[in-house]
């Protein structure tokens, strides 16, 4: 079984990777990618089913917070049933999106402002090293440079400092991070294709 799964992973990976460089493999690549899309969608369903089972068990066991779990399961099943029946683009389903999902997420995002300011204020009390100071100064300068005054941009900050930080200094760091992430991704992917890493449980 281990060899079988490894062969599947390596073979599929090589075929898909070959599709990037060899046009002859483009169709096979597309076929495999379409299969993968279907299976990814099915995996999303499996994840949701798992969420249902977990919270259902909590309700069945009457664990602490089972009331909230019951609410979650009811909301989930109801939405799913209505979604299956009405389809997601139905206006009723839009109500759920505009009335519940968007307000809750946006409000949670709004609460983040308080938390961010609170964390920034307390940061230097916990650690006052170079990186923290640089981090906080940069954030403060950019926040200040992003604002305007009634008569226009904040002199120097909004017109010179902010653009230079974001377009030069931050660009260099971000590029380094991106290249590092790409190298890490490349390494991890190659390990999977070589069978060194088997995150699918075939170790």
């Amino acid at each position, binding site marked *: 079984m281990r060899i079988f799964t490894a062969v599947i992973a390596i073979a599929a990976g090589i075929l898909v990777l070959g599709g990037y460089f060899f046009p002859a493999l483009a169709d096979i690549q597309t076929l495999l990618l379409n299969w993968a899309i279907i299976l990814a969608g099915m995996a999303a369903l499996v994840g949701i089913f798992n969420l249902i089972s977990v919270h259902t068990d909590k309700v069945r066991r009457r664990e602490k917070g089972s009331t909230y779990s019951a609410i979650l399961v009811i909301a989930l099943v109801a939405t799913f049933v209505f979604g299956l029946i009405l389809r997601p683009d139905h206006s009723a389903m839009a109500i759920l999106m505009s009335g519940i999902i968007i307000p809750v997420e*946006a409000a949670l995002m709004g609460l983040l402002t308080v938390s961010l300011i609170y964390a920034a204020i307390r940061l*230097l009390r916990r650690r006052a090293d170079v990186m923290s100071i640089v981090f906080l100064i940069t954030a403060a300068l950019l926040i200040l440079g992003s604002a305007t005054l009634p008569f226009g941009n904040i002199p120097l900050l909004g017109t010179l400092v902010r653009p230079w930080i974001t377009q030069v200094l931050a660009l260099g760091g971000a590029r380094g991070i991106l290249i590092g992430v790409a190298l890490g991704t490349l390494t991890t992917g190659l390990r999977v294709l070589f069978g060194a890493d088997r995150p699918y449980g075939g170790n």
Partner: protein
Amino acid sequence: MADTIKCPVCGRDNSADQEFCENCQSRLEPLTGPLKGADAPIKPGQAPTRKNTAELEPILPQWLRDARDSARKSAEDEAVSQIGKQSQESFSASNSDLLAGLQSHADSDDEETPDWLTSITGNSAASKKLDAESPEVRWVELGGASDFAQEEPPVESSSEKDEIADWFRDASGSLQSPGFEQPASSSHDSFIASSDTPDWLRQMAAEHETKDEVVSAKPFDAVPSSLFESSDTPDWLHQLGEDASKNSDSFFTDAEPSAGAESALPQSDAPDWLSSLGAGSQEQTPSADSADFTGPVSGEKEAAEIPSDEGLPDWMKGLQPTESEQSIQAETPAWLKDDAQPSTESADNFELPSWLSATSPTPEKPVQEEQPAQDDLPLGDIPGWLKAAAPQSSIYSDSPTEEAAPSSDADWLTSFKFPSEQTPEPQPQLPPVFSTDEPAEVPAFTGDAQSNYNMDSLFTDMPDWLSNAMEEPSSTSASAPAANSLDSLTPGELPSWVQAMRPLDAGSSQSVANDQTFESRGALAGFQGVLPLTTGFVPTSKPKVHSIRLQVSDEQRSQAAMLEQILAAETAPEPIASFSALPTSKGLRWLIAFVLIAVLGTLSFMRTQIFSLPVGVPFEVSGAMNAAQAIPEGAPVLVAFDYEPARVGEMEAAASPMFNLMQNPNLTFISTNETGAILAERFISGPLADTDQSGIQRLNLGYLPGGQMGIRAFAQDPEFTFPQLEGVTSLSQFAALIIITDSADSARAWIEQTSSSRGTIPVVVFSSAQSAPMIRPYYDSQQITGLVSGLYGSAVFEQNMSGGSGISRNYWDAYSVGMLLAMALILGGGLFNLALGLRDRAASREEK
């Protein structure tokens, strides 16, 4: 202690913790080491195993014999050999019990080694050859050889002592005691020998006077001195000494007391010449007493006491104290016991016993036999003065007894078969073993030997093996040393130095040593434990010893140390740098929340537009504007909605100006986010519906699962079958790709996976402010055409395209105030907390 031990065999330095030499595999430390602490007393009955091992002397190693030969050949030993020759011929050949047996065996068979010497090797007789290379054994022999000439000054002997192993030096004073017993015992043995060899003894006596100087060089002179220097010297002895000095002035004028001692010995066994040795017999007392005591004061004092016995001849007066000192004997024959009382009385009253006058033509001999008889008496029968004298006289305990043998021809003494031919081996071979100890240290004789307890034990607790040794000539040689050592030790216990010499080889040697089979027939009849039962199992050669130490280089050691450190670091708990748990300040949270909501709510409620929109167009925003303006009217534009509902306000505000700028675009919406499709519908029905453009076509392709895989599949084969996308078969046929995302990963996925299929179409990214820093490098690398990030970018876009009348404008005042407020809170609060943090850290440092 040095870290290295030089191998006594090959001379190579070995580390101190090694047991065997790396080069020659010789044992570096004696096997007797562990026995040092094993002070378990050996009760009578255990020791016989020791005496029998002397029978295995024939297997004495070759090196030992060679050493002996070399010792003989040395120039320094020539004088000793002369002494030894005399000793062989006269008295010194017969040492005490310790040496007599060895000598006799050495004489009879050169390969034989006495038990005590074989024990030194650490193995029993069966394994003697295995330990032939033992350094201690070698030292014993060599030291002995060098000490043959005991007339050597103590400095030389101490120099040799440097080579003595600690274990041997630590063998306690009991080890020294035999050494110093030796002179006395040798003299005593000489009597025994003389009793059986009257011829040579007579000859020696004739030569005695001519060799006084040579004889005086013997160690006898120094040894007894320490004995009698003791304050415990009985009064009677001093008195006797004084008497002797009175009788013969020449007695103490002799500068060589030992010579007197030697001269006295032949006297006892040579009746014919004994008369001529009257002065010599007088000299015997001081010689036996002490060399130091040869000092004019003490010597004269004691000598002055001797002549006080008017009833005795001069020579007898001189002998009396000597005999009294030789009073202690392990066992005394009955006949001696019978004679003990008279002799004791004679010692007390200075009266010649009747038996002495009757039996001996020479008065000296009975007198000399008289004291042993006293010694052999039961303790209860011994007078008080004799009890007190016993410890001192024990040194020479054997001398009178054996001295009496030739004169009385008693049966028990005849059992001591020490034929002269059995003692040709020069005496000096063995005495050096003990004479290596400093002569000045004679604790055994001064302390233990003088204790009444020891004396009592000698009389009452005499081990059986010692008594057997007296009866069995073959075993005497083996038991004699132990008997002598016992003189100064706790009764019934084998001295520690003897224990230390016991063989440790628990294998074959022990089996042999424990073999106590009594031979009942044949040539070995009467011997016990001579032949091992398990001869066939005794290894005939020493098994090669392989060092268990790894031969590692310094580099390997360092690497091993490094590995140990790494392993230790892996297992060592690494302290987690945890920050001090700051208490959550709800007040600060509430304050921040209140200020923000109050200010923002006020501004939002008032809908002010006081703050101006940002001035200046960044390059990325201008690129987006240029791309939007470059899109032909009605051209298909692919729009990816990849943002979360949480940022719907920001993203709608950021992207709406772009759609106002395009001329009736043919929009195709797609999303890799599950909620993106419905957000697209919201955008269509919201900001897009608010635009002035009426000819916008839109198509929502919905959700594209699979993330990067879905994007790659979509970019590779769009499979558009929709009428509004007629003629569009690939991604590159779109007029532009607009990515509205709040995630840098999503933008990166679109950029990466469409890079090979989108061609040169412009890519404009509308991103959230949080993801813009990670997307900007793609703009700098010209992978995307424009980038509009957050409300700031949309405000700039809106400011420059539509004059600032969109969503961004509605938010901008609150946004600017919110940013300024955050800046003030962060700077103010941050500096305050920085000060607090510095204070806390300083306080914590002070606490530490």
